[in-house]
């Protein structure tokens, strides 16, 4: 199995997320950046499939130079090699442009299986998996909480997470699968893995190397644009009910007003 897994570097989950004042893109400079947590599940699933069926896991990311940290993390977990698409001209790419760029890179790798996670914690578009499948002309299996690969029959079956229960979905390989957190328990990298990662092949591509047209990517090529952004309003302080012997009645009145009782 030749498996490609996409990973994205995002601002640390707990960091206050800000938009750059000048171009309204996510500010990645003033915060700690980490691997999108859900991508750890994608990497884990890719490694498990490789361990069960043999083959190779290639990590693909698009992001600034610093995103190489996230590649190293995936390699230290056990992935075999990586491709890092990085170029100043890619800054500000929207979901459409991101998926076009990733698809271009991934198609050169001729994967049997592409794994993404369902959502990145910064932009939370939740669309890249579907967009990639469309651009690669492959079947898409989204929201997978369990993946079973049958290389001999060249098919993949997933349990697709639904509101109450799951749906069994099957596709022929190659295919794109996006995973949810229920799917597994990601391993930690190990010290030995970290040291081994140093020696694993890493290909760094510019937009031109990847054959991307500068006008179709980055802020210039984005089909969407952020016009304005406002911070979420601080939570209001709530209502304080003073109990003067009638506390119960007042609470019942409050709940009734909220149509809760």
């Amino acid at each position: 199995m030749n498996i490609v897994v996409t990973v994205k570097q995002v601002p640390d989950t707990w960091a206050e997320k800000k938009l750059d004042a000048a171009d309204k893109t996510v500010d990645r400079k003033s915060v700690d950046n980490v691997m999108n947590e859900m991508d750890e599940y994608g990497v884990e699933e890719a490694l498990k499939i490789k361990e069960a069926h043999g083959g190779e896991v290639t990590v693909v990311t698009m992001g600034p130079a610093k995103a190489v940290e996230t590649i190293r993390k995936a390699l230290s977990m056990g992935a075999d090699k990586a491709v890092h698409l990085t170029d100043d001209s890619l800054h500000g790419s929207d979901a459409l442009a991101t998926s076009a760029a990733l698809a271009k890179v991934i198609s050169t790798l001729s994967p049997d299986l592409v794994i993404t996670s369902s959502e990145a914690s910064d932009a939370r578009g939740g669309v890249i998996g579907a967009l990639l499948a469309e651009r690669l002309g492959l079947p898409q299996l989204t929201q997978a909480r369990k993946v079973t690969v049958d290389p001999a029959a060249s098919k993949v079956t997933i349990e697709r997470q639904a509101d109450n229960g799951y749906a069994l979905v099957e596709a022929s390989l190659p295919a794109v699968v996006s995973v949810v957190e229920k799917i597994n328990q990601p391993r930690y990298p190990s010290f030995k893995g970290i040291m081994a990662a140093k020696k694993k092949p890493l290909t760094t591509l510019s937009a031109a190397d990847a054959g991307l047209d500068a006008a179709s990517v980055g802020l210039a090529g984005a089909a969407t644009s952020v016009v304005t952004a406002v911070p979420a309003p601080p939570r209001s302080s709530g209502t304080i009910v003073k109990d003067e012997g009638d506390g119960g009645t007042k609470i019942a009145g409050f709940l009734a007003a909220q149509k809760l009782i």
Partner: protein
Amino acid sequence: MPVERLLATPEAEAVVELARTIAEREIEPRVVADEADGRFPREVFAVLGAAGLLALPYPERFGGGGQPYEVYLQVLEEIAYRSASVAVGVSVHSLSCYPLAYHGADAQRDALLPRLLSGVPLGAYSLSEPHAGSDPAAMTTAARVESDGAGYRLSGTKAWVTHGGVADFYTVFARTSTDHSGGISCFLIDAGIDGLVVGAPERKMGLTASPTTQLIFDDALIPTDRLIGGEGAGLRIALSALEAGRLGIAACAVGLAQRALDDAVAYARDRQTFGRAIIDHQGLGFLLADMAAAVESARATTLSAARLRDAARPAARAASIAKLVATDAAMRVTENAVQVLGGAGYTKDYPVERYMREAKVMQIFEGTNQIQRMVIARHLAKG
């Protein structure tokens, strides 16, 4: 605010980040309950061991990480940020491997060290006795040679053993002759041997998730090949191990102090009095500024001592200074963190009172801070 670290390589950064991630995910969710219930988190050590974080400063050819102290200590710091008990445990485990790694014969190291460094077993270091703490040469636990040559028979009571009862092996010091400081020897002893009884855990003020016990030896048989470094070399070995261990404790103190500072700052930015956040009252802002300065200078002093050691320079004086400066800083910073939280800080609903209790012991073990001053002064006197 994330700590600004200058690490030499991307791999070092990744190792420190790995420690931070494991501490955040495996330790943080349980530390409050473990400390309250006095439960030793053995599972956390298993995760750290599997990740290779229990053997970082030891040679690679024996399965260690071959990492400089400068990196290892920052790993300890990240662990101490989440749990002083676990970080002290990692440091003590490391200490327990030291005598074999640096004073064992080649055959002993080949036979025993890979397992010690595998991350699976947990170690303890047993030097102190009820009447021999600051003055270890006053110890009375005796190891006498068995007449049939089968080994040594150990008898006596060791005290204050971190990981007593939960360790898989003990590095124990005992007397093989009456020569005051030249009659002490070092043994590597498996847990569970006949003639070794573990005492009840001490009821401590802090580090309650880390068991501290006596070890009572009654004619326990120790095979000859478990004597490390020859008869009489024990005190020298113990002191060289402690020189490394003190750096570990200094790093634990820095991590703990950083946590207390961060918690205090977060509270002070949120809590309002007289119409503004308390951090904006200069009197309290300056207290926090002094705390930040104490943490940063403790870290700098500790890492500077580590770099001396990594460069194979004499580092005993620097290690004692680091232990003294960092643990005194941790005491002051944690005490002030309680002050910053006001009444809330004095309750068990907030963790800062625990930090203060945890900082206290760091001024006491691995050589009290009086003993550190004694070491430093001796170096000064020698010129």
